[in-house]
């Protein structure tokens, strides 16, 4: 059974990836998950410098979902390369780094540093974090800026480049096209939905940042729709995510048009999910006589 999928020049042994920000730097999970068994480990968003993030409370549970505004706390690209990459390499992880920036220059600079680091397999360009002012959303909600930042980072790296798109726009496919036209090798979607929970007893937002990003099963039907729409409008691969919690959900996204998928919130609920997802995909392929998982991509009958 062939579970491999291709993202640009990269051939992954499985379509399953961890979603950025939901799997730490990967190493946190190294003693319970075989990192080399994943298609890729997408690590937490990195800026050039270290960042403190927002004060707690940073998350709140919502119906079948969660709201987060972590604020991209992180160790910065230099410490990541120094402190995390050696161990990730040793464990055989295919590492995709989620790159953040407050300016086009910062995006390009972080990307350049990572491109010089052995073992970084691809760049996921985070132009869609809804939770901090400089989180890229000013790039990700404007077509021209999306094109500009993608083009600039394209010039900075030969690695596969995967802009990560926000769902908080009228037409996600136009952003996917802008990414494609400016040299992206794939797009990933969706990042979280900008959302808000207010506690009526205190009349204050439930998380310190006021607003946050909604993830989890609640958003899955919207994410599937966006993946379907984007996959029809671009030729580059689409990496789908949003609420995936079971093999059924992985298959739903792939049939909608995703070449690979990422799992975020469900990994919090069930960090031992990975082998079960893979077994479920294999079971489906056996039952439906599918030899290569890539043959499922975009096969929705609609």
């Amino acid at each position, binding site marked *: 059974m062939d579970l491999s999928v291709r993202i640009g020049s990269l051939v992954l042994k499985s379509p399953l990836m961890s979603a950025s920000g939901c799997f*730490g730097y990967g190493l946190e999970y190294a003693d319970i998950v075989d990192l080399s068994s994943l298609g890729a480990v997408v690590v937490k968003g990195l800026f050039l410098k270290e960042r403190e993030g927002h004060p*707690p409370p940073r998350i709140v*549970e919502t*119906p079948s979902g969660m709201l*987060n505004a972590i604020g991209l706390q992180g160790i910065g690209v230099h410490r990541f390369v120094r402190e995390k990459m050696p161990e990730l390499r040793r464990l055989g992880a295919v590492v995709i780094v989620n790159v953040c920036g407050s300016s086009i220059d910062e995006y390009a600079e972080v990307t350049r540093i990572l491109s010089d680091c052995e073992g970084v397999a691809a760049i996921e360009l985070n132009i869609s974090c809804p939770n901090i002012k400089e989180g890229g959303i000013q790039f990700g909600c404007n077509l021209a800026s999306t094109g500009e930042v993608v083009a600039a980072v394209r010039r900075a790296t030969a690695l596969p480049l995967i802009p990560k798109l926000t769902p908080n726009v009228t037409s996600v496919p136009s952003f996917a096209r802008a990414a494609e036209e400016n040299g992206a090798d794939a797009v990933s979607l969706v990042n979280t939905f900008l959302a808000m929970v207010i506690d009526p007893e205190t009349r204050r937002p439930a998380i310190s940042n006021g607003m946050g990003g909604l993830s989890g099963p609640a958003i899955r039907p919207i994410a599937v729709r966006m993946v379907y729409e984007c996959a029809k409008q671009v030729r580059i691969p689409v990496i789908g995510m949003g609420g995936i919690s079971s093999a059924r959900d992985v298959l739903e996204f792939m049939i909608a048009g995703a070449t690979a998928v990422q799992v975020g919130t469900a990994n919090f*609920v069930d*960090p031992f999910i990975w082998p079960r997802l893979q077994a479920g995909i294999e079971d489906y392929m056996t039952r439906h006589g599918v030899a290569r998982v890539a043959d499922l991509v975009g096969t929705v009958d609609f």
Partner: protein
Amino acid sequence: MPPLDVPALVLRNTHLSPDYNVLHLEAPAIAAASQPGQFVMIRTAAGTDPLLRRPFSVFEVLRDAAGSPSGISVLSKRIGPGTARLYDAAAGDRLLVLGPLGKPFSLVSPPAEAWMVAGGVGLAPFATLTEALRSTGAPARLFYGGRTRADLFYLDWFASRGVTLDLATEDGSLGAHGRVTAPLDDALRARAASLPVTLYACGPEPMLKAVAGLARTYGRSSQLSTERIMGCGLGGCYSCVVRVREAGGAPHFVRSCLNGPVFNGDDLVWE
């Protein structure tokens, strides 16, 4: 040992009050690996409501007839949908239990004394700590506060294990009238500086803050078990941070599920 995730059988659910219950869970491997102060993440329902797991201290390590660890209990206070489900769980149900997680308490040895300070359900980590202290031989004392006498549990359990009890209730129905930090303050003041004491505390944040203050005032070391909202318990989400100041450095956020839940009281920075 890496944490395990086991579909633990509910052996028994004892309702202590309209809010509090103790769940006995079959989980030998987690029980065997647990150290005082560690916690587990429990999935309180199949399906998506509630979605995330909930963190609970390991309350007791259960043992079979031969004395081998066979499971754990958790002491739970019902405050929302997750704890409501634990309150309603029935023997025979199965709950996914992930653990043990987090950094445990460090134990002290005689002549040092261990003074435990518990506010409400903050009692939870102190049963296993008491057992462990018995092996070091350090004398143990429990300062335990609650709203009212009916909210103080397991007093005989601690007393029968040689723990000196100092109780306080906010309505004065048992022990000192008011906060538990008042008798603690008195006791710290009364104790000669030459006699070592380590404070162990778990409870509401204002209590932890007060205990940290008392520790500083009286020059005692403290280990505080923090309770932050946790998305994962494994270091994946960065939701559970507390601000610490490590030797010389500037204050910064660290994940309480990995670097805690137990912290040195001197390191914590309160907002």
